[in-house]
């Protein structure tokens, strides 16, 4: 089976190259080296047997003396894996001779190599571009795009708010980067890499969150286990086996959850940017922060905005400092004139419309434009959080499609089916602890049914609508430790 967008990757650190790369790390011990040696043993492939994992990502060449030995040492593992239907992807990095490494990978039967920068011409093998998120790129022959610097999702301890229990905590999530990647290359799969924090044994729930934080946004986490868990799995220790079962259970859930795989992003707001160069920061910040103010939105790559559908949008936030191409500007202005609100940066040349003096906001000056509004930022480099807060205020809570209560450590991601009539709200709990009260979800649009599905539940839970006096209805959910999806049908 060839590598494709559905492939489920797992990092498989093993062999002399991984030992050479890690031996100077703090906390590296003889035991660590032993586990890295053990995972060369083809017998360890039993770990992935019966799981959805089908692509193993191995270290292939780093320009170190251990490269050749590594490729040789991996041979039995690769041979047995290929026979078992697994695919292998070799990571080429550092100062490796890329042409030679690619040729060796091809000869060894690897399905692909992953490397940063430009792929060698006529590689003869799939080359997965593997870059940091600000340098995301894709090659024509690779079904997936690699992002090498994802974050371990959760609530970072150093960011615990000092403002008291009434603050919403900071959360680390890969959602923004994945959504941008998928907007830039909608036909590609996205593989995102990040390792568990070193030096601490992670609970199964932390890994489950890592899976959910990527899979719910339509990406694949290159599953990476901590040294202790890999050692314990090799030693067949029951707690490790149980943890691994939970992790792969979460992967299986997303494999079988049709909405997560096929639905598209939805929301009344679109963020439009090329996410390139100096536009990366404000664009990524906006995409990262709207979930914290609970504003559902779509991400549209600037290069695709002219052909993108603006149906159902109430507002568009055009992020980039340079003005859009004439055709796009025309489309954006037409959107505003038809009743939408267009948010633009301070450098927007010759703003259209007439000032609306009565509408005063901190960061944006409003201009009446046809049936809609043009909101021009007052400052060149606004604070990102202030920007999303003001955009939400200008949009008005009157138009909220969704609200989330009693879930300070949660983000949600809102998707709809292409045919309409079905929607899903992914709920991710970055604290990995169920709250004393379950989350409450407010939905403005009436639906026929709602149910909660989650790997944490034995079976789906039908949810009861509680109508609200001022319109809309609320759904009271059971507590969720890591992940749940509310499926709506109208």
């Amino acid at each position, binding site marked *: 089976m060839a590598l494709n967008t559905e492939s489920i990757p797992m990092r498989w650190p093993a062999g002399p190259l991984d030992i050479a790369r890690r031996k100077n790390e703090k906390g590296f011990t003889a035991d660590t080296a032993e586990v890295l040696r053990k995972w060369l043993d083809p017998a360890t492939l039993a770990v992935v047997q019966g799981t959805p994992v089908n692509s193993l990502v191995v270290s292939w060449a780093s320009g170190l003396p251990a490269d050749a030995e590594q490729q040789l040492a991996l041979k039995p593992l690769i041979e047995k894996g290929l026979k078992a239907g697994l695919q292998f992807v070799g990571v080429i990095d550092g100062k490796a001779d890329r042409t030679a490494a690619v040729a060796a990978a091809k000869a060894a039967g690897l399905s692909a190599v992953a490397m940063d920068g430009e792929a060698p011409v006529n590689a003869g093998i799939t080359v997965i571009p593997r870059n940091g998120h600000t340098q995301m790129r894709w090659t024509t022959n690779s079904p997936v795009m690699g992002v090498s610097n994802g974050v371990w999702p959760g609530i970072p301890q150093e960011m615990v708010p*000092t*403002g008291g*229990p*009434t603050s*919403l905590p900071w959360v680390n999530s890969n959602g923004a980067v994945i959504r941008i990647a998928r907007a830039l290359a909608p036909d590609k799969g996205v593989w995102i890499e990040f390792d568990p924090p070193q030096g601490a044994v992670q609970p199964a729930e932390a890994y489950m969150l890592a899976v959910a934080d990527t899979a719910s946004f339509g990406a694949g986490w290159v599953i990476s286990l901590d040294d202790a868990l890999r050692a314990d799995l090799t030693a067949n220790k029951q707690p490790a086996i149980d943890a691994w079962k939970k992790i792969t259970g979460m992967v299986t859930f997303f494999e079988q959850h049709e909405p997560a795989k096929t639905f598209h992003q939805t929301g009344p707001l679109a963020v439009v940017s090329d996410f390139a160069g100096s536009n990366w920061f404000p664009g990524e910040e906006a995409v990262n922060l709207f979930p914290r103010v609970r504003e559902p939105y779509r991400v549209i790559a600037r290069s695709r905005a002219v052909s993108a559908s603006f149906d159902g949008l109430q507002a568009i936030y055009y992020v980039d400092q340079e003005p859009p191409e004439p055709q796009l500007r025309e489309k954006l202005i037409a959107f505003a004139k038809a009743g939408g609100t267009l948010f633009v940066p301070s450098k927007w040349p010759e703003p259209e419309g007439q000032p609306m003096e009565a509408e005063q906001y901190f960061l944006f000056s409003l201009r009446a434009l046809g049936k809609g509004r043009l909101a021009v930022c007052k400052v060149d480099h606004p604070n990102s959080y*202030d920007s999303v*807060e003001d955009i939400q205020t200008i949009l008005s809570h009157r138009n909220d499609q969704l609200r989330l209560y*009693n879930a*300070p450590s949660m983000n949600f991601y809102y998707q709809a089916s292409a045919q309409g009539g079905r929607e899903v709200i992914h709920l991710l709990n970055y604290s990995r602890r169920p709250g004393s009260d379950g989350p409450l979800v407010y939905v403005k649009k009436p639906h026929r049914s709602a149910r909660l599905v989650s790997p944490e539940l034995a079976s789906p839970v039908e949810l009861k609508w509680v109508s609200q006096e001022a319109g809309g209805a609320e759904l009271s959910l059971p507590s969720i430790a890591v992940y749940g999806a509310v499926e709506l049908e109208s």
Partner: protein
Amino acid sequence: MNRDLTRREVLLGAGALLALPALPAWATVPAPQAGRVAVAKCKTYGPELLPALSKMFDQLGGLDRLVKGKTVAVKINLIGVRSQRLGNALMEDTFWTHPHVIGSVVHLMGKAGARKIRVVEGPWSSPETLEEVMLSMNWKPQDILNAADNVEFENTNYLGRGKKYSRLMVPSGGLIYPGYDLNHSYEDCDVFVSCAKLKEHAATGVTLSMKNVYGSTPVTIYGEGAGVDEPSIRPHGGRGGTFHFARRMPSKSAPQQIDMSLPKDAGYRIPRIVAELCTARPVHLAIIDGVKSATGAETNYGSPNRPQAAINPGVLIAGTNCVATDAVAMAVMGFDPMAIRGTAPFVSSDSMQQLGESLGIGWRDPSKNEVVGAPISEVVFSYTAVRDKILAAKKKA
């Protein structure tokens, strides 16, 4: 054992043996005024609410006497993070002043001839308009705006519609601060109304009409994200860093703390700030919504001993003196209005009401005030009993 604080103890720190500076020599503290407090049974926010409030205002001498031809500022309570509710109970049924109470009060004030009614609040950390805050909770703010002529909202977390902040000084010289810089709405009014909730507070025992005034302070000056030298333009953060714990000082443009060696304990600081705010910006009418509420305060700091529960005390309390009104409210909640630090509800704080009394605002002792309407004994709803019941059930489980 309950006892009154002496003037000296107030000045020196509520009985704590702390060597604090005395008030300035010119400081005067008037004798407390006796107040009249009306109490009414009201089980729901339905049709019985408006007549109940109307009757109470009549029992207090009539709203027209207070508001006719005047600009009125009504400080409501919308504090806490909006996304954090008590189970699926609505904020207005637990911790916030109910919109029907606000609307009814506004309506009755309009009917009594108020020239302008400005509904004010500084919702936690938020730069949003009050209308937006209300919309975010699925309220219908238009119902309040249309309840009388010339009604407007103002978020007083920042400068708002004003051109400059209003400096309101504490007549006695102050216990923590000598004065406060507030949004213009608190000066640009003839009548100031505190329209509060009958609820508890994690640090100060209770949040009633006096504590409600705490939220009048702009976070652009007193918030964790306030400007250092000048007020910030935009509100950021809560007041805890400055007021509760003195981790930082207000913007330098505002009156500064009298003595930097004052305790950094919320139970010491908040009651004093509240009491002095109530003398800097006197409350003409205190209204407490106790129709529905909650035990345990909106933020119980995770204390398992302070369980939260939605409750239905079914009572409204109003008075022309905030200390007297709060004292009656405490009695309704099953607390001793004469309680001091160390006794419920002031487990770890001084009594705002006691401090208010010492600053001459009014009497706590119900016998020194006139209580009209429903007898307190008929409307007592013990918050402690509810909490004890929950704790006992938990223990049993």
